[in-house]
């Protein structure tokens, strides 16, 4: 073996942990299992395990004595269970190894759980007259700690802390104190009872309850427990428990005697076999880990709606003071509102009449209507301007024009500024009322409301910030043009703004596209590229609408949210889909890239709230924003909302996407290691190549077993199999980088061609996707070096690089746009497990069949087909979606396409190409 002398061992040795876990004795295992099972049971909502099994002093009677034994198994929440497990395992393992399994069973189902429970109930019920329920394995932890402390005290009575000597038996009391301080709801009394019983046990007063050894031996002998039960610690083995040590790497398997307590030598061999089985370490383990990561990621997401993992929303910024002011917008303002509305209505009617005359109702497809906003005629714009000017505002206009996918979007923004009295134009709030709502309905009421509010707000002198009223013709492009120009970042065909104010502190979008009264407010908050406004703004809106005005609020189109798990999950998923696609959900979305928090308020339903109530809500919101001394920064910018008053913050949900992204990284690193250190079928390569897969595996198993059997001797593996293998990096690197660059071509095409060619382009890309990997595989196989070994290494390297890049991108993306990273990650999961089928393990026809089947399956997950299927599922036209996407790219600065074409697609092509290699 050519490797240099081994490096010093890691302080934390994973193999030790594994062997420790594998060696856990029987009763410990059962207890751990029971705790996990009870925790899992607690997740369902039908039957409350806690209610059933916890130790509730008032509930204890003859029929419910079982509680005295069940309570240590029950935990609330994952962390409680996990921490207790962590603390309990070593203590219990030690105890069992020392006393034997039977004794442990007898003691832990007998005195060691009933005594503390009894003591607790006595004190709690009859001395303190309270009824606090307790549960959790911490009682055993402290009990065992207590008995251990007594034992330590006997050998080593004091700690010396400077001049003071502290008896060592007090240490569990300190631990108990610390736990009570740091952990909420930790029962001090319960722990003290446990420690007390532990002391008694340690001092030997409970020896009476230990079953006599003779009896144990008799039972053991009769039932042949040692032979039947795995991991059973017999009465004879027990004394070794305390002094048993782990087999260390240097010791190898030579020191046979101390290991005998493990049981039969077969078990030992099995462990050693695992440790010395590089095939398992390099090939199977990464797959298992990757799979576990994916499963854990998905399960993690599914756990989020539970109460334990989500949080109640709260107002973080004290300056907001939502709902603390009286809103006066009512009374005669409603008359003015109706006046403005009638006035605008009359002009619009005249306009539509004249338009119908001129345009003779030519046939226009639905999407054109959807994509081309109605340009408002000059009279409407003039009327709006004159109203605003009469109210004493500074009015200005801005023309803009965008061209995307061959469609021109143009319009004229009208905006007006209420200059804050005594203000110095340093800060401003924006109110937007687009003529067309996000759903492309005429927002006449919203615009009239904004005009009325402008006149009303102008009379107040308390504004500390300017208030800007923006009236764009549509929700898609108008606000974007305005906000771009406000920061002087506008493209060429957008006019600069002639009138400006200070830094924008917040934005509110008003929509009211119907004439009847409304029931609740639907709050839109998603921004472009999945950016979100500060949670405080959303909370303020919910709190003012609900708490002050008595208007319910909804989010994510969840009209009947009954706060159940399913509804919460559905809300989260809808939010994630919107966030993942990253498109602008309303006029407010354009503000987010400039770090301006904005939301849209949409009245929904048929109720008894009128436009004045909406106006008062907006007044309250403006007053709250007006109170702000600093830019909104206190609360969360990364969150998933599951209900108007519940959310999960980034710290809780991020691991989900990170785990999924991590699965690619794990696989990539494993492949890299594998290409360098271990070469899968090296042993097989020296054998006749006809050997089938099963045989090879057997060979490996046999050889490793042999090496395990005659331990310290020369292993049976051939000397050249562990030599360093040169990695051929040029081709894999070129291929992966090249494919990522190649992604720019579809990115360009899908953002720049005329909208009517989008379906054609989609189908073409499907066809190309089907051919490209195979063509790539065919041409590369010819170019690849001839030896099978190098071919196989290079395909592994290609996969490694591709997955490394994917994992890197996705984990970075997860911090910016969690949902997109999660979705792409899920769609890419098969790529972790797709491999070039080794020609030595499968015959050619089998390979071909497998590869073709794999390719077909992978093709179903290709970007264009996923798009088609998603469109079919939602019932939207592909052309509309792609036009929208191109519009997003051109106008909103949306990055979703880049992720699709430059991250997902190259990884996907690589995966297909790997399968394609198997064909040749």
């Amino acid at each position, binding site marked *: *073996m050519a*490797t240099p*002398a*081994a*490096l010093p061992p890691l302080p934390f040795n994973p193999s030790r942990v594994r062997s420790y876990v594998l060696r856990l004795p029987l009763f410990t295992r059962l207890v751990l299992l029971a705790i996990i099972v009870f925790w899992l049971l607690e997740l369902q909502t039908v039957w409350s395990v806690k209610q059933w099994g916890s130790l509730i002093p008032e509930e204890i009677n003859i029929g419910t004595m079982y509680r005295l034994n069940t309570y240590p198994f029950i935990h609330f929440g994952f962390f409680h269970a996990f921490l207790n497990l962590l603390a309990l395992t070593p203590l219990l393992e030690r105890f069992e190894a020392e006393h034997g399994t039977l004794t442990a069973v007898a003691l832990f189902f007998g005195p060691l759980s009933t005594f503390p429970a009894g003591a607790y109930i006595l004190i709690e019920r009859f001395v303190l007259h309270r009824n606090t329920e307790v549960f959790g394995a911490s009682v055993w932890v402290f009990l065992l700690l207590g008995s251990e402390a007594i034992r330590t005290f006997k050998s080593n009575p004091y700690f010396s802390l400077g001049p003071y000597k502290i008896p060592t038996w007090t240490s569990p009391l300190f631990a108990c104190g610390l736990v009570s301080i740091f952990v909420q709801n930790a029962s001090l009394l319960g722990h003290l009872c446990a420690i007390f019983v532990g002391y008694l046990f340690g001092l030997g007063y409970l020896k009476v309850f230990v079953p006599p050894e003779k009896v144990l031996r008799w039972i053991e002998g009769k039932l042949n427990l040692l032979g039947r039960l795995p991991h059973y610690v017999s009465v004879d083995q027990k004394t070794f428990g305390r002094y048993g040590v782990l087999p260390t790497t240097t010791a190898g398997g030579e020191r046979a005697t101390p290991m005998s307590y493990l049981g039969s030598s077969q078990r030992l061999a099995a462990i050693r076999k695992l*440790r*010395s089985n*590089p095939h398992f*370490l390099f090939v199977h383990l990464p797959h298992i880990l990757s799979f576990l990561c994916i499963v854990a990621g998905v399960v993690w997401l599914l756990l989020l709606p539970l109460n334990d993992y989500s949080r109640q929303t709260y107002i973080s910024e004290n300056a907001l003071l939502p709902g603390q002011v009286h809103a*006066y*917008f009512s*009374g*005669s*303002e*409603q*008359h*003015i509102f*109706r*006046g*403005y509305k*009638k*006035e605008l209505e*009359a002009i619009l009617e005249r306009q539509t009449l004249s338009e119908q005359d001129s345009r003779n109702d030519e046939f226009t497809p639905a999407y054109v209507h959807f994509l081309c906003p109605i340009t408002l005629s000059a009279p409407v714009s003039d009327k709006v301007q004159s109203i605003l000017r*009469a109210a004493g505002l*500074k009015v200005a206009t801005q023309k803009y024009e965008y061209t995307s996918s061959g469609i021109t979007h143009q319009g004229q923004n009208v905006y007006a500024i209420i*200059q804050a*009295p*005594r*203000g*110095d*134009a*340093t*800060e401003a709030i924006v109110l937007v009322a687009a003529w067309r709502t996000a759903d492309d309905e005429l927002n006449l009421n919203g615009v009239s409301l904004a005009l009325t509010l402008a*006149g*009303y707000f102008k*009379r107040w*002198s308390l504004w500390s910030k300017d208030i800007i009223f923006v009236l764009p013709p549509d929700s898609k492009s108008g606000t974007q043009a305005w906000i771009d120009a406000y*920061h*002087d*970042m506008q493209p060429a065909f957008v006019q600069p703004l002639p009138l*400006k104010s*200070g*830094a924008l502190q917040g934005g509110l979008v008003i929509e009211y596209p119907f004439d009847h009264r409304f029931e609740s407010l639907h709050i839109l908050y998603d921004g472009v590229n999945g950016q979100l406004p500060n949670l405080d703004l959303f909370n303020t809106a919910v709190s003012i609408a609900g708490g002050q005005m008595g208007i319910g609020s909804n989010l994510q189109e969840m009209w009947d949210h009954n706060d159940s798990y399913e509804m919460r999950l559905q809300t989260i998923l809808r939010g994630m889909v919107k966030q993942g696609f990253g498109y602008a959900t309303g006029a407010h979305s354009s503000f987010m890239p*400039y*770090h301006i928090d904005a939301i849209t308020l949409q009245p929904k339903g048929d109720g008894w709230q009128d436009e004045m109530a909406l106006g008062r809500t907006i007044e309250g919101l403006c007053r709250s924003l007006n109170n702000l*001394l*600093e*830019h909104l*920064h*206190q609360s969360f910018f990364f969150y998933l909302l599951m209900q108007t008053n519940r959310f999960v913050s980034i710290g809780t949900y991020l691991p989900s996407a990170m785990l999924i992204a991590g699965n690619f990284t794990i696989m990539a*690193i494993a492949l*890299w*290691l594998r290409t360098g*250190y271990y070469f899968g079928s090296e042993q097989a390569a020296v054998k006749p190549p006809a050997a089938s897969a099963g045989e090879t595996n057997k060979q490996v198993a046999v050889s490793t077993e042999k*090496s*395990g059997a005659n331990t*310290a*001797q020369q*292993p049976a593996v051939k000397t050249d199999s*562990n030599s360093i293998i040169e990695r051929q990096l040029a081709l894999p690197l070129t291929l992966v980088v090249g494919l990522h660059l190649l992604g720019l071509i579809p990115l360009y095409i899908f953002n720049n061609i005329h909208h009517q060619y989008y379906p054609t382009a989609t189908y073409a890309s499907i066809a190309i996707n089907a051919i490209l990997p195979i063509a790539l595989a065919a041409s590369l196989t010819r170019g690849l070096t001839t030896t099978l070994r190098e071919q196989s290494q290079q395909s592994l390297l290609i996969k490694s690089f591709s997955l490394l890049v994917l994992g890197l991108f996705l984990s970075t993306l997860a911090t910016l746009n969690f949902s997109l990273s999660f979705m792409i990650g899920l769609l890419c999961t098969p790529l972790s497990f797709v491999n070039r089928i080794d020609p030595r393990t499968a015959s050619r026809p089998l390979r071909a069949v497998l590869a073709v089947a794999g390719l077909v399956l992978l093709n179903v997950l290709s970007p264009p087909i996923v798009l088609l299927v998603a469109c079919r599922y939602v019932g939207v036209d592909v052309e509309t979606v792609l036009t929208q996407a191109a519009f997003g790219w051109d106008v909103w600065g949306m990055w979703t396409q880049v992720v699709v074409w430059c991250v997902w697609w190259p990884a996907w092509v690589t995966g297909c190409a790997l399968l394609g290699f198997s064909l040749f």
Partner: protein
Amino acid sequence: MTVLSLLSLLFLAAFSSLASANSDYHESLVLQPLPQSALLASFNFQSNDSQTSFNERHFRYFPRALGQILRHANTKELHLRFTTGRWDAESWGPRPWNGTKEGGTGVELWAWIDAVDDESAFAKWITLAQSLSGLFCASLNFIDSTRTTRPVASFEPTGTHAASDNLHLLHGTLPGEVVCTENLTPFLKLLPCKGKAGVASLLDGHKLFDASWQSMSVDVRPICTQTGECVVQIDQSVDIVLDIDRSKRPRDNPIPRPVPNEQLVCDTSKPYHSDDTCYPLESTSEKSWGLSEIFGRSISGSCPLTEGSTDGTVCLRVPHEREVRATEGAVEVKKPDGYTRCFTLESSTPFDLNIPEQEATTQVPLDEPVLRAERTIVGHGQERGGMRIIFDNPSDTHPVDFIYFETLPWFLRPYVHTLQATITGRDGLRRQVPASQFIKETFYRPAIDRERGTQLELALSVPAASTVTLTYDFEKAILRYTEYPPDANRGFNVAPAVIKLSPAGGGGGASHPIYIRTTSLLLPLPTPDFSMPYNVIILTSTVIALAFGSIFNLLVRRFVTAEEASAMRAQTLKSRLGGKLVALRDRVKGKTAKTE
């Protein structure tokens, strides 16, 4: 050439006539209704003390507190401004006093100090700022070296100074300072009548600081006549623009509730007009107002010290045909310009003025401002930004020459090489031109981190009927953790720029320059999350250490099984020897351990 506004002429006339008087006290109030129901009220109080009595510390009209400070700080000429709000030049026309008696938002202070060198001048300047800070209850003590500049061309001394004086001009601004009643009270205390009598009795903090725009100024300067008689003049003025509607609201019910339905003024000609639908009608008539209505009190007679002055004390600028009701006994003088009438106050007789609501037929003409300037921060992000300054010359015939002066805090680092100019004509076409075409002279003093700010003075010329846009990029510095103020996320104030229009160019032949100030700016700087640095630092370093450590290990280490490792070790002679040595050592060690 733009005609100087009549208003300014009036001010200047009053100014010069008063300036000639010796050891005297004058006060005046000029009221002028402005469009959009605004009312400009300009209060001016001027007193002179002879230089000799000033030197002998014999103060008569001159406030002793201020006089002592000035003497202590060797200050020959002092200008102090307190301003809030912004002057709406678009609606209100040119500024009162041509902008010479106003400052940028917040507090602005500049002074000529007699000192031998720069260091001692700066020491005196700090003394002055600290003392004034106490006198005026303002945070003037925050004017330190980073906020102090020495303008080269933007300010000229207005007083007469001996050539032998070694004068240093220092200028400092506090753009974030909020001006309020605590500054007004000491200001009024400087007046000889202390706000108890005369026009100053109208100055009430509640009304004054409810104004849309408000500026207070204190100017001290020595003036010498040809004959060599010198006086020290203190000129205090308060200019406010009140919203008539807002000021008329009763003090116990200031909330602008929606008016009752029956008081709505509706356009009844609309076809949809009904009881519950109302298109509001714009009222064309002038609103009625009165002094006691607007200021909450009437003038309690004239200040006895002003007796003997012939000029009217309260002047009102409305067309002569407008009906004005003044208190009995006040002498009304109508000026020949057709718009001004002045009233002379009686001592100890309250004076009030009422203007009933009437149809406005003629208006006092307002001049077009000579130059419009706007300064904004553009761009976004935490690292870079840009400054955009727009100069608009409304005149169709004359170019405007002016000096543009800005001081930037040190954490805003401008890239002067990116200074670019675009010019937009009336045709709306934008043309990129070299900045040197407009910039005739540049004075640039770069910033030193934490020591001084950037000072930029440009002599510019904007051609007739065009708009010039200057832009430059800047970089935002990252402050030290402790340098952030408590409200770091609000942003950092950037002082307004000062524009001085040279008299020859736009001043209409007058010898006094016109000053314009832009609005102040708010600069968002990269701000750490102060609430959780501990968590963030600990967590990220742990994660990075763990991830880096384990991945690094995985990549550089070679993992072998225990058997392979021992086999490897057994193979080479060296390692075999090494192993033996280790075993030997272990044995020795083990023995010693046992004997212990």
